[in-house]
């Protein structure tokens, strides 16, 4: 197919980001300078020491990710095809967050081409993109907003130029109209007709102007997802649906404790002879079986007799990890404040949460003749490609990695372990495999947002909060994939892998993402971690540390407000440290009727949060009356119910307000889950939870009846992140509402973690549960 290729913009590596770029770059080095500006005129002269603005306000994770991506961003290309369509092979993962739709909208805007003529596909791993093929940190819109538009605008310029020559007309007299170029006399040439003539003959640098925001007709308007029809008809294909010849179902028999390893297998021949089974092979993480159907894989896994070596936390339970955390907790400082100052001090525990999506881990691999071809949903495909090449001892060029749409990602799909398993199995079996994790594998051997504690000591005197210290102590979060690469590239001072996770990755990530969005005198926040990064499999989970960090803060804020005799909303209003935070707070208070009379044991909760270049506030109403808490739904975790939620979000510029609304609704459901119902229990070296009947993510019976999302009008004109943005604010608001409804501040999360177990733990050996047979009578 012939294409018109857009020339590379002269300035695309130094793009015209406008005011936000100025903020990001100028402040890249001396962050404290910019931060000082934020403190000007805020009226807290009585604070114990000047409030040194936190790092993240001036230079947050999005800047870091975008800056890492800049040198290669010119390689993003928009093609105009002879059939009049445009294509964009996006070096990002579509995982439900809507980035395909968003990319199509940006192209539609700058190219003046209807949305349904734009095909956005997911690019294979392209190692030459270096760090520009990494989907994380709600960063896609932020870092692709300008490059995609530049490419599309250049394409439009080339089309106009070609039309000018063919129509013998001056370019400035031509007008692009929805896929065609029109001359003043009414003559028209379609983009399809122009595509060949507009093609370049050599790489040239071209200057381009982007459509000013005042002329936007697509950006900022609500649009439906471009893949919605495929989704509702069942035609949308995930990794496990892709037809690759002979890639037969494959599952892995996994150890009974976390990260145990295979010692020996007693009955390989017997299992290989079972119905449908073609192969059995021991791989690094267990014993892989390949069969005609996944059902027969389950049968085979259950029949395997495996002796296991011990794992990494054998014999350990929640209480042991908690004790290790407590031993590692860094003492809070004793602030130098006037003797009359009063202190609020609280400690919170956050238990382990599973980051699995509904689509189980799945990878198709064909490893034969010194080459590998992979299909999988991947947030970091380049790293995956490099790891596969390393595992097989072949050059990166011998490994093709196709990225499939993900059925949710949430951080889990930054890790390529399912791909490596599939590669190992395919190599050993000499055949293509379609490797899928059983659901049980996910909570038992998958990754989790690790257990942590957060301690806060705040002091106040009169109407001033003098100090606010937060000490966060966590089981190590594995950032060695994805984030690790980018940060390594930027900082260039990371200790060897395995030792440097905490100092090299976790601590920088912490300081780049956390803040206290209030004018509170001296603010300090510190993170320290226990254990090696991979002792308990971990990772981020729809946001990094902020759901926990901010929930702890907002509960203490409510406590401060109460002690200082102030209403929670008015307190936040008084201390909020910028106008955007104030605006979203006011919006939810107004729309959610803050302070309306509530029945006993029901209450409102409110929170405000700044991250991803945006501001968000959430107001919820919770019902903790016994008749609600004890309501019965078959095999369900009920408990307190969030009945209503109002969220106001300012991302700077909402490219697709409808998509943003969806992300906020999803973040709300995560926040509700993390506050009230969702956690994993570590007992004797393994997690008790084994499926969706044990791991209580928000379900319909927990969902609010009334959800209102308010997308604020553009503020900065630059789109910030959205995918993970809703979670911290929602979790904090739910926790605050619960505290107000019950009169008791919750100090461990989710609040039901230490209640008697609501389920019977499934067996560990065999590792998989058999599917029931009563599905015709039980629904």
């Amino acid at each position, binding site marked *: 197919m012939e294409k018109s290729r857009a020339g590379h913009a002269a300035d695309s590596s130094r793009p015209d980001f406008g005011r936000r770029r100025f903020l990001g770059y100028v402040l890249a080095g001396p962050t404290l300078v910019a931060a000082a500006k934020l403190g000007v005129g805020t009226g807290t002269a009585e604070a114990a020491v000047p409030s040194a603005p936190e790092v993240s306000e001036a230079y947050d994770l999005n800047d870091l990710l975008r800056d890492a991506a800049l040198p290669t961003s010119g390689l993003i290309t928009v093609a105009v095809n002879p059939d009049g369509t445009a294509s964009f092979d996006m070096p990002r993962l579509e*995982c*439900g967050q809507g980035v395909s739709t968003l990319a199509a909208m940006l192209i539609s805007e700058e190219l003046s081409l209807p949305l349904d003529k734009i095909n956005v596909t997911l690019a294979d791993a392209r190692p030459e993109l270096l760090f520009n093929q990494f989907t994380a940190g709600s960063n896609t819109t932020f870092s692709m907003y300008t490059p995609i538009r530049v490419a599309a605008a250049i394409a439009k310029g080339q089309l106009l130029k070609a039309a000018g020559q063919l129509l013998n007309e001056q370019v400035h007299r031509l007008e692009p109209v929805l896929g065609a170029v029109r001359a003043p006399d009414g003559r028209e040439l379609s983009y399809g007709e122009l595509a060949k003539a507009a093609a370049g003959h050599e790489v040239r640098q071209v200057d381009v102007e982007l459509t000013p925001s005042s002329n936007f007709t697509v950006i900022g308007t609500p649009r*439906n*997802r471009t*893949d*919605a*029809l495929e*989704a*509702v*008809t*069942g*035609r*949308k294909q*995930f990794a*496990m*649906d892709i*037809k690759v010849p002979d890639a037969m*179902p494959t599952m892995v028999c996994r150890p009974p404790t976390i990260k145990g390893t295979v010692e020996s297998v007693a009955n390989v021949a017997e299992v290989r002879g079972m119905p449908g089974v073609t192969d059995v092979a021991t791989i690094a993480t267990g014993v892989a079986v390949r069969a*005609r*159907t*996944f*059902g*027969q894989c389950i049968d085979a896994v259950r029949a395997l007799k495996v002796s296991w070596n011990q794992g990494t936390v054998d014999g350990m339970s929640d209480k042991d990890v908690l004790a290790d955390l407590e031993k590692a907790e860094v003492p809070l400082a004793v602030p130098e404040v006037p003797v009359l100052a009063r202190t609020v001090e609280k400690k919170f525990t956050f238990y382990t949460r599973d980051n*699995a*999506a*509904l*689509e*189980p881990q799945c990878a198709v691999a064909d490893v034969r003749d010194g080459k590998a071809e992979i299909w999988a949903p991947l947030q970091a495909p380049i790293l995956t490609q490099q790891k596969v090449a390393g595992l097989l001892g072949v050059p990166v060029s011998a490994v093709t990695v196709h990225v499939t749409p*993900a*059925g*949710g990602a949430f951080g889990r799909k930054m890790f390529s372990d399912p791909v490596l398993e599939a590669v190992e199995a395919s190599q050993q079996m000499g055949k293509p495999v379609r490797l*899928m994790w059983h*659901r049980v594998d996910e909570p038992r051997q998958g990754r989790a947002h690790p257990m942590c504690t957060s301690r806060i000591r705040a002091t106040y005197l009169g109407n001033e909060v003098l100090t606010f210290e937060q000490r966060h102590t966590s089981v190590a979060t594995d950032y060695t994939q994805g984030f690790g690469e980018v940060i390594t590239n930027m900082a260039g001072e990371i200790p060897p892998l395995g030792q440097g996770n905490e100092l090299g990755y976790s601590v920088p990530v912490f300081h780049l993402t956390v803040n206290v969005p209030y004018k509170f005198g001296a603010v300090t926040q510190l993170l320290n971690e226990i254990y090696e990064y991979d002792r308990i499999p971990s990772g981020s989970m729809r946001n990094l540390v902020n759901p926990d960090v901010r929930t702890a803060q907002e509960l203490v804020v409510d406590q401060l407000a109460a002690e200082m005799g102030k209403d929670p909303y008015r307190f936040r209003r008084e201390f909020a440290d910028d106008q955007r935070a104030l605006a979203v707070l006011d919006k939810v208070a107004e729309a959610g009727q803050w302070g309306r009379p509530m029945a006993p044991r029901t209450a409102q909760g409110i929170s405000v949060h700044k991250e991803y270049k945006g501001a968000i506030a959430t107001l919820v109403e919770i019902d903790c009356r016994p008749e609600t808490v004890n309501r019965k*739904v078959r*095999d369900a975790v009920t408990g307190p119910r969030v009945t209503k939620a109002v969220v106001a979000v300012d991302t700077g510029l909402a490219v697709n307000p*409808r998509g943003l609304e*969806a992300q906020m*609704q*999803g973040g*709300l*459901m*995560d926040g509700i889950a993390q506050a009230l119902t969702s956690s994993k229990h570590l007992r004797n070296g393994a997690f008790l939870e084994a*499926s*969706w*009947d044990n791991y209580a*993510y*928000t*379900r*319909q019976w927990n*969902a609010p*009846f009334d*959800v209102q999302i308010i997308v604020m009008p553009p503020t900065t004109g630059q789109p910030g992140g959205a995918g993970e943005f809703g979670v911290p604010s929602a979790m904090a608001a739910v926790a605050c509402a619960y505290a107000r409804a019950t009169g008791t501040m919750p100090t461990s999360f989710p609040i039901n973690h230490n209640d008697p177990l609501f389920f019977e733990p499934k067996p560990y050996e065999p590792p998989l*549960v058999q*599917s*029931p*047979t009563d*599905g*015709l009578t*039980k*629904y």
Partner: protein
Amino acid sequence: MPQHTFKLNGEQVTVDVEDDVRLLWVLRDVLDVTGPKYGCGINVCKACTSHINGKAFNPCSVRVTDIEPTDEITTIEGLPGTVGQPLHPMQQAWLDRDVAQCGYCQPGQIMAAVDKVRKARAEGREISDADLDEIRNVCRCGTYTRIREAIRAGAEHM
């Protein structure tokens, strides 16, 4: 190998597969019908929800041998055919509300929604909050609010 025959999305199909293989794997791995999704295999996530003789069920928990030759299985692929339209009204409601995010659970959600409305109608009433609260399908993206809206809207055209 035993043979099994049943009606799938309006057509009689016959498969050679062991008796105890669950219908979900027969659909997905043998017949290449991939609309019903795997999410748990134990009838708790409901991602594979389909219809048997017009009623919702979960093929992950039914042996193929327990399906009768006259049984009519409808998966998301066959749902529009039940109304003789390019899309079932519930699918259209899903589009109108832009319900899906990643889309993985949505075939099951839609099949469960159609069943919910049919059951309420059979009892001579419309969908209530209590009905919606009973829907067990997991959506890990958290599209529950739009699902509730879409079911009410879709029901109006069923």
